[in-house]
């Protein structure tokens, strides 16, 4: 195995390389759900939510 090959093997795969400007995690990664959020969701512009009142 050449030096280049072994260097290539040691290299972090492209998709797992964090950019140099990467920062420490800003959250504790609790992944909790926020209670009390409205039933509707923020929608992308141009998309509408039609609500039909219960009869």
């Amino acid at each position, binding site marked *: 195995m050449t030096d280049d090959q072994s260097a290539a093997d040691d290299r*972090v*795969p*492209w*998709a*797992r*390389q*964090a*950019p*140099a*400007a*990467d*920062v420490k*995690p*800003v*959250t*504790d*990664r*609790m*992944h*909790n*759900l*926020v*209670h*009390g*959020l*409205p039933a*509707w*969701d*923020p*929608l*992308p*512009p141009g*998309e509408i939510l039609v609500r039909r009142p219960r009869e």
Partner: protein
Amino acid sequence: MSDVSHLQRQVRQVSSQVSDVNSLVQRAQQQLTAVSVEVGGVAAAQKETQNELARLQAELHKYFRQAELAANLGRAETKFGNLQGEMEHTFGHHKRVRRTATGLLQAFDVGLVSEDTVRSIGEELMIDAPRYWLAPALVGLAAWSRDDQEVCARAIETAFGRSPSRTALFFTLILRRQGRLPSATRWLRHYLDSLSPSALGRDFAVILEAVAQGAFGAAARDLVRRKMSEWAEQLGNDDNATATQVARWREEIERYRGKSASDDFPKLSTLSPQWPDLDRALAGAASQQGLLDTYRAMMAEEPKPSARIEDAVDDILDRLVSEYDVEELPLKRQLDEQEAIIESHGDLDAAKQVAELQSAARDETLDYLTIQSTSALLPDQIGVSRATQRVAVSACEPWLREAHAQYTLEYRQQIPDDVRAKISSQLTFGSSAFKMQPWEGSFIQQMPDLERDLARHWDRAIDPFVQSLRFDWGKAAILPTVVLVSGFIFFAAVGAVVFGLIAALVGGAIWGGLIWMEGEQVEKTGLQAEAALKKAKAESLRQLRQAGAELTDWSTRFQTEDRKETDVRSMFDDLRRAGGGVQPFEQRSFAQN
């Protein structure tokens, strides 16, 4: 007497003069040695001076270098301070927006978003940072949490207008975190629409991985698959790009090519000039099984879900809210350059190298086709999981199919129309060499016909050779007859008829005996050669029959391997479908202990 004493005197004089010359030479040598020592001393002193000079020069260089580094460092520190001031003055509000975003994300992560937290995030934040996408995105997020639909919609429209891709990614990730998968998928579509398939960053690879692992649900996987097909079609219009990908898949198929089967077909491989083509075709057909084994195993494998995928997705969110805005980047790059100079203690070259590496790592993108093929063929190299590999293989199916079709056609075309056997023979018997002209026959003919033809060829070669080995008694008798008759005539002419007759009879008996012995020996060798050649003929006929049988075996084996091509094509259909997931409702749930 007086002459002798005069001579002695003169010798003594000469001797004393020689002695004087000797002492002079010795003195000269001593002086030379002294001079040499002095010269050595001068050389040592000169070397010392040179060393001293070199040391001084090095110290001077070091001093200048240190002065230069110190000046660079000083300048960089001043520039860094100025740039920081300028950054603070021009984009200080961006920093405030990022701090606010961090606070809000932390509140969302803990699951407690208080009134106080969201109250501070009003629409004035959008006005403070008039071109920064994150400000209205945060306002929209805060408005959502306090159930203010109108402000939320307005803020989102503003954020989307400032940066569609970042806004879409931001809400995709936020909504996924809150388990609102249908809405996250709607945002995901906008995010994918905002990307350019010719320059995709690592974030896309992470999203692809998360989607493939079911973190966004089945609908998102379907959406991504459709988008990938659209990109593949878009980029696939470029014939070169498609050809490159097909060639990569062709290489992949070549990996499964079988080994040479010469050991399994020893006679056919020896006798048939077409064996290399037959061998290549069989090895080519053997790859069908390799492909079936590998890709069926990939489809059957239950992908192990990564426990870290949520964290990787959250890393993207962290980066999104921490990264600098486009208009901040020129100043940020200058700041980074000066910071690199400070960190390298004023070494401009080292700092430049670091800055270039950072910049290259930050800006590195790949086109979609490369990401897709590499994810499918070398998932470890690009850093994606088996699940993503399956999605990628599914998307690459048209290239794989085309490469496979080309490959199959090629090895089938290698099968020769006419498989022939070529037999020749060369044997040596004493001083005689038997050489049979090569015989060739086609296996298209019936084996008995072939055998007959070969046997006739052998006979045509053996008969004249055996004939040539027979002893020619007549030829052998000519010389003795001539000699003996001539001798008898000679003796008869000189009057010794009786003696001549006796001599001729005795000579004839001895010579005849010798010729008889030689003739017997030659006849014996001829018989041995004939037997050996008949044996060789029988052996070559046996080999021909064996080669014919091996050709039948080869044909059966080739057909068995080649028939699997249909299974491989059916498997491609399964592969295409497998990209959608193991089952249509598959999705990922996340729980933290």
